[in-house]
């Protein structure tokens, strides 16, 4: 599975399987494939798998398997797991209300990039994003595929309270805020879709490897979708 793979100790109960030192779709696809392989046919003592951009943390129970044996098992898997053909993740069309109180940076960013507001929205909503990893907060996903023109550094001082559903840009990545909280990202839109809802039967909607497109909607449509969702309706289904 590539000569660069390294198996690094993260304490005595986890290994970090590192495939590369770069953010790359092919590397990430292999990480997700390795996680899937291990999940479907778990070695003895496997506890948890946490995939990220270019590495997979494999947590195990040393009462059931020694580190040495787990390391050997992981090396075997690396040989067995081949590069997947294509991304098989789900495709989500996510409604986005651009600008307004939540998308408070839209005007400034459009101005900075010498774009009209509609041009900015067109650019942001015509790209297909890919979820590289989930982390930082419950259900928070890091989106790759942001057009280069829209890359924008984070603020030096995070803002104290950005609402759930805010759609942002941080460096070369995109995001959808899964929970309210402080953030140094720049925000251009919001979605009524709750990607994380602990009370819901399916608390987390999105998974690593899924793809996301943003569909511009008016504030009225956004509010209407919010209300329908609150009454239990499923407002977005994956393709």
């Amino acid at each position, binding site marked *: 599975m590539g000569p660069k793979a390294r198996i690094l100790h993260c*304490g005595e109960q986890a290994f970090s399987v590192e495939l590369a030192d770069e953010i790359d779709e092919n590397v990430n696809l292999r990480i997700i494939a390795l*996680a899937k392989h291990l999940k479907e046919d778990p070695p003895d003592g496997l506890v948890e798998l946490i995939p990220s951009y270019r590495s997979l943390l494999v947590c195990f129970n040393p*009462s059931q398997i020694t580190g040495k044996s787990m390391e050997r098992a992981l090396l075997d898997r690396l040989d067995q797991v081949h590069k997947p053909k294509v991304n098989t993740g789900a495709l989500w069309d996510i409604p986005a209300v651009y600008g307004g109180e939540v998308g408070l940076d839209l005007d400034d960013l459009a101005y900075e990039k010498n774009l009209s507001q509609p041009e900015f929205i067109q650019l942001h909503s015509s790209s297909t994003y890919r979820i590289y990893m989930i982390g930082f907060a419950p259900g928070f996903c890091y989106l790759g595929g942001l057009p280069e023109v829209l890359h924008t550094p984070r603020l030096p001082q995070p803002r104290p309270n950005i609402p759930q559903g805010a759609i942002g840009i941080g460096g070369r990545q995109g995001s959808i805020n899964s929970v309210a909280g402080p953030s140094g990202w720049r925000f251009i839109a919001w979605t009524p879709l709750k990607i994380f809802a602990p009370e819901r039967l399916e608390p987390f909607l999105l998974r690593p490897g899924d793809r996301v497109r943003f569909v511009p909607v008016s504030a009225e449509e956004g509010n209407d979708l919010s209300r329908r969702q609150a009454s239990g309706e499923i407002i977005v289904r994956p393709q």
Partner: protein
Amino acid sequence: MPFVEVLDTGPLTTIQDAGRFGLRDFGVSQAGPMDQLAFEMSNLLVGNVKSAAAFEFALNGGRFRFDANTAVAVTGPGVELSIDGAAMATNQTLKIDAGQILCIGPVRNGLWGYLAVAGGINTQPVLGSRATHLRFGLGGLAGRSLVGGDRVPVASTDGSPPVRIAEQDLPKTDQTPIRVILGPQDDYFHPDMIAQFLSTTFRVSTRVDRMASILDGAPLIATRGHDIISDATIPGVIQVPASGQPLILMAEGQTTGGYPKIATIIGADLRRVAQTAPGKNLSFVAVAPEEAEAALLGYRNQHHKILKSVCLAKFGQICNAQLYSTNLISGVWDSNTGKE
């Protein structure tokens, strides 16, 4: 449903059960107790399963009033407590009557303590657990720390659970260096910097909570920079941000991070780190993974023995000599450990 009324309490009193497991890949760290052993012991002492929801407090307990006859147990290093003004001991079942007030003082020889109530706390589970995750407002009572005036529901019991004592001491919070396995990003640091990390006596700063403990000491500089491509973290990893001040992730730490991790605290020593209060010292020694593994299995074995030592007793049959011999009156934590 019977309840416990919080009259007043410290800033970090929360409801915790064993934790919310299996969701790290969705960005949810487990939360759960900072000191698993003290937590589990408190539950066994009141006849609960060891994972039942209980109160966790830091630095200071507070005052709790009970609206029904029940039994409680308090654990934690050097915790003082009383019921209606009469001094009581940690690590044993205490009967408490409706209307009585349990007063829990400071955690003298550590940081975290536990109060378990017979039947367990009966708040609504969130994502399969009652553990409070403060950062994201999950579980517990509205996902927040408790304040005076809160009424916490507990499961009904018949008010006469069996009385138990712990015959075996909890392991002491000794002063030997905390054992770590270097990495996974120790290669971000020059060997001299690794040597500095392993020879420095760090001081636990006041920035300590359920997410992390930040250490003060000579700053650690990463030759390859303080940004990595974000990857997964677990409790016990020692991150080094650009400030050079090491940051140890704990029960509620975030699941991914972008700082190099110079080392990871071994499982057997994590509890000692959790119980090291602000202002106290910590130093580190690197061990081989095989040694860490053996230490973990030894610790689990000891943990198991301690929990097994919680045995049925009757108040009348425990004489003072017995109490002293099991170190129950002064608390199981040797008073010398307060000097660390």
